[in-house]
């Protein structure tokens, strides 16, 4: 016989002496087979539900707070990153513009120098042509 069954059997025997077999059988049938200490009642379930709902509410609040904090941090990092990127682009463009202007200035100087040489060459050529024409005229 199971250890837990012995007290139940002794109770049955005492009740049988007091009430008779039939009424004792009825009474024992209405009793729990294991005891009621571990059986949850509707009230227990209601209380459990309230605890669960409170825990869920607390968890929801904590999750919302963490999500808000995380989003704010992410937004801040994105803003910082964008500002840094914008600054680097500005610096790069300024450097590029500066280099472009320097190159343009050098090219302008070279062009002017070439034009001057060409002009002097043309003048020299004309003067040579003129001198040649005078010489031909005198010879004739």
């Amino acid at each position, binding site marked *: 016989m199971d250890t837990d069954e012995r*007290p*139940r059997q*002794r*109770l049955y025997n*005492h*009740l049988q*002496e*007091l*009430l*008779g077999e*039939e*009424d004792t059988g*009825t*009474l024992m*049938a*209405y*009793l*729990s*087979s294991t*005891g*009621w*200490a571990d*059986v*949850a*009642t*509707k*009230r*227990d*379930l209601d209380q459990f539900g309230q605890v669960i709902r409170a825990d869920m509410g607390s968890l929801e609040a904590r999750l919302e707070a963490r999500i808000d904090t995380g989003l704010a941090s992410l937004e801040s990092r994105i803003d910082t990153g964008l500002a840094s990127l914008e600054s680097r682009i500005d610096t790069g463009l300024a450097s590029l513009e500066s280099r472009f202007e320097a190159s343009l200035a050098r090219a302008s100087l070279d062009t002017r120098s070439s034009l001057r040489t060409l002009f002097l060459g043309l003048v020299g050529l004309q003067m040579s042509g003129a001198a040649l024409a005078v010489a031909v005229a005198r010879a004739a």
Partner: protein
Amino acid sequence: MPTADDRSAAIAAMAVHIGEEAAATLDQLLPRRPWWDYVPAEVLMRYEVAIASEPAARHSLHCALAERIGHDHAGVLLAFLLPVPARVLLAQGVDLSG
């Protein structure tokens, strides 16, 4: 509505007849609250549960108890007993925790 004190008094009255040890076992096996705290009304209306009720046997038990411990204590004990045998509720798959 019977209270926990009423329940204790009824079990004490039973202890006079069945002894302290058996009364302690009865205390352990008897529901802590009236049966309507354990069994929802919709469960009682189920056909399988309704036909399992034994009003004559329950009435006989009530009378037998009343003869030994008095009507008041007997009424209290009956209030704490399930409306149908626990084995029937369990066999029907009724959740006693509901």
